[in-house]
């Protein structure tokens, strides 16, 4: 699911580069937006990690329920 968001962030990066080339952004605005691209990617990476932890949690819950049922 996060792949679509990463692709959209890449598309936004290309848009920023086009705006820089067209002179639509000042130097400081462009620098700030490039830093924001990294922050948005960091959020996506953390979201992926959270999704994995949620999956592991479900598996752990199922395992513990099973072990308790056997015991």
């Amino acid at each position, binding site marked *: 699911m*996060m792949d679509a968001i990463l692709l959209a962030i890449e598309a936004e990066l290309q848009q920023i580069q086009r705006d820089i080339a067209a002179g639509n952004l000042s130097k400081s*605005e462009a620098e*700030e937006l490039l830093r*924001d691209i990294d922050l948005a990617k960091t*959020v996506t990476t*953390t*979201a992926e990690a959270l999704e*994995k*932890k949620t999956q592991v949690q479900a598996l752990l819950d199922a395992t513990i329920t099973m072990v308790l049922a056997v015991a």
Partner: protein
Amino acid sequence: MRRILLFLFVPLLVGCGTVQQAWESYWLPPFDNREYTYAVELRTMSEFMAGQCQDAKISAENATVIHRKAQEFHNYARELQNNRDVAAMAASIKEITVTLPERYARSEPVSPAYCRSKYSLITLASTGAQQAMARKKR
């Protein structure tokens, strides 16, 4: 029964690199409606505000409103126990919004292209956070 347990344990051990990861996963807080609402509000507000970038006066007001909402999200998430991932996402989203009101407070004009890209990135980051939180255990 042993086969069922083996079937559950093997992917679990492969999935968790470390005991710490398994521990953090086990104690992951369940779905939090308020936290989820913050992500939805940030996503919706940024989608809406992106369409108002041509108007500098409205955009200046929007900048303060969205930064305040991101700050609220971060303040809420950061104090909850075992909530490191959501707090980190909230911190990054807040970091994206923090420069918006600062820039509109300056004397030099803010370009509509900057405004659109800024809100677009807030939308994408909030959407990622929302999707991950939506999958949490109810």
